[in-house]
């Protein structure tokens, strides 16, 4: 299956890049003092409020066939 192949490749690429640290140590290249811009609210994908995210996730899960991988906890939905 093509999808399975894509996922396997991504996981292997991720694994290779991360385990690379063990073989040849790579120091974290973005230092804590360089992360000020990452803390700006514009760097957080909206909705930033948990109730708004929950509402969005709910209205999509009850109308679309796909679900999950949005980083939002599912469950508790009466999708009847």
């Amino acid at each position, binding site marked *: 299956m093509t*999808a399975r192949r*894509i*996922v396997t490749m*991504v*996981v*292997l690429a*991720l*694994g*290779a890049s*991360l*385990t*690379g*640290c*063990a073989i040849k*140590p790579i*120091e*974290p*290249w*973005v230092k*804590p003092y*360089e*992360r*000020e*811009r*990452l803390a*700006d*609210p*514009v*760097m*957080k*994908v*909206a*909705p930033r*409020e*948990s*109730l*708004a995210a*929950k*509402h*969005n996730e*709910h*209205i999509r899960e*009850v*109308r*679309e*066939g*796909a*679900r*999950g*991988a*949005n*980083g939002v*906890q*599912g*469950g*508790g*939905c*009466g*999708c*009847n």
Partner: protein
Amino acid sequence: MRAVPTACRGAAVAATSALRSALQALGRVLPAAARLRWTRWCAPLAGALGGALSSSPAAAMTLPEDNAEALYHLYDGGGVTAQGPALLVRKSLFDKVSLTGSYYVDMVSNASIDVVTTASPFKETRKEYAVGADYAYRDALLSLSYSNSDEPDYKAQGLSIDASQEVFGSMTTVKLGFTRGKDDVGKKDEGFFDYAKHWRYRLGVTQILTPSWLASVNLEAVSDEGFLGSPYRAARVFGTLVPERNPRTRSSRAVKFSAIGEIMPRTSVHADYRYFWDTWDIKAHTFEVGGSRNVGESFLIDGYLRYYKQSAALFYSDNAPVETTYISRNRQLSTFNDITPGVRVTYQYKHVPGQYEIKGHLNYEYQRYKFSDFTDIRTGQLYSYGAHVLQLLVTATF
């Protein structure tokens, strides 16, 4: 976040083995149908996580900020109006545990195309409460939560456990999560007659790429077992309406790639792509692009465009030409697409540094659904509709 000296590397190594054990345990408790593919993912991932965790200093996790949210939400489209209030409060205790409580109400008035063509319009209210606790221990944040949703013909309960850990000098955040759900399925005038069980497994990695770019990958596997349809919905066979018949099991996988970057001061862009597939043969693609910008001292504006498309489930048919074991005319399982432009405006009403902050939010999106094999039997035309989604929020951190 506060950096911790390299001396804490031991904690990271210990955490590595804990995460490895957790991954192996997840593999063991998975239903047999899902196990093969999951363990195939787990092996390289556990190795990858192990490498990253043991080769980098650990960082101390901080608890989420104390906050409160009040929401009014509205969905209006396709003959359905769902609206109501929701409240959430989060408060930390002794800087170690953060507790949350939330209450969410959905008042639904349903005259959707299914309902008006095969049944009668109805109104009902769904109430959901949830409680949770987050616990910060060294470089990890552990979360436990429980939710309970109640409507006259459907009750759902869910228990979730999540772990989040920063590794590689806090440049990488790894998240693992599991939710176990159990629903009671009922029908008006007949009472509760069946159940539905759900298992959800989440894994996410967020990586700081540069001082202004972040990327993340999220995976989620979901397995369901039980009554997975609606006792009210009808399917069509040779033009005759019959009760729908769905398989009693379903397993799905989703993988999502996201990137966000600051392209100029106080302005960011983001792009997401999600691929979804399941054992009912639905395949779906979701694309989203958007931008965010701080305007003046008090406003934050977000704009986005989302596109979603999916193929139909194997047993979906608008009007089946043969009787089959499973048959559904649930348009959620049909071939369709939807496109959603949206805008969010955040206004910072008051900000007292180190004390509290109050914000107002107005979020609006328009969804346009277009079905390729679902007919409006009143007109004989393919069905399509638009929906408005509105969120009004007041949030405070303290």
